[in-house]
């Protein structure tokens, strides 16, 4: 459909949640805003392919998610390096309990496999139905449900169970918790 005023307003109204999705996926504010910008440009360039009356946020999220995944493959090595530096930064930061808890959660979320992380965010934070999340990720509804369940179970192990060694090193999280006393 053509870019009407109301469609443009609807796209603008989706920007805050697109940014939140992008930051949750990438863990990096600058990169997230670049993703959002690229998403908006793609959406506007392909606005003719948007079906009037269909779910605009889901359409925009699909574009952003696909951009992130193609970008992620390119930057994989760079991201791994950044993870190491990010962990070092955390250990040296002064502890503020709210900030600390937030960082701890952020670190745990980053440890999830990408499929599980995006499914959890779409359903648990963006508020999409399982059906919409499945359409955004291009997979079956049952697959989304299973990814969300695995994501929740892994997060609870990382954050709330001592000795979750099955889930790989979580020394960063422990170091942060351990350093908060006194």
């Amino acid at each position: 459909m053509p870019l009407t005023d109301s469609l443009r307003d609807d796209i603008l109204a989706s920007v805050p949640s697109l940014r939140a999705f992008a930051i949750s996926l990438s863990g990096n504010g600058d990169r997230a805003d670049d993703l959002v910008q690229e998403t908006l440009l793609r959406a506007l360039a392909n606005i003719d392919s948007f079906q009037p009356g269909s779910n605009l946020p889901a359409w925009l999220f699909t574009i952003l998610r696909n951009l992130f995944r193609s970008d992620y493959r390119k930057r994989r090595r760079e991201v791994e390096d950044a993870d190491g530096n990010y962990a070092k930064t955390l250990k040296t930061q002064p502890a503020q309990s709210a900030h600390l808890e937030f960082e701890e959660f952020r670190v745990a979320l980053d440890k999830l496999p990408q499929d599980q992380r995006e499914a959890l965010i779409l359903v648990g934070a963006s508020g999409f139905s399982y059906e919409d999340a499945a359409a955004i990720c291009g997979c079956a509804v049952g697959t989304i449900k299973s990814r969300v369940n695995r994501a929740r179970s892994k997060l609870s192990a990382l954050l709330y169970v001592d000795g979750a060694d099955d889930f790989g090193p979580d020394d960063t999280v422990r170091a942060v918790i351990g350093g908060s006393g006194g």
Partner: protein
Amino acid sequence: MKDVKSQASKVAAPGKPGRLNTEIQSRIGHQLRAMYDDVVRQGVPDRFAELIKKLDAPGPSGDPAKNDGRD
């Protein structure tokens, strides 16, 4: 199954084996939404408002999508 029980005992309030503890799940849900909503509350940065506004007006290039609004 004793192994399952010993693992579950490490959780603050043990749930049934194979089922996620509801209290923990509600904390995870709360943290996830808090993190997300923190960004949502920041609204639309000027950068994006201007980008959309600029694209609205037909550009001289005839292909507005190419003007990405970066400085």
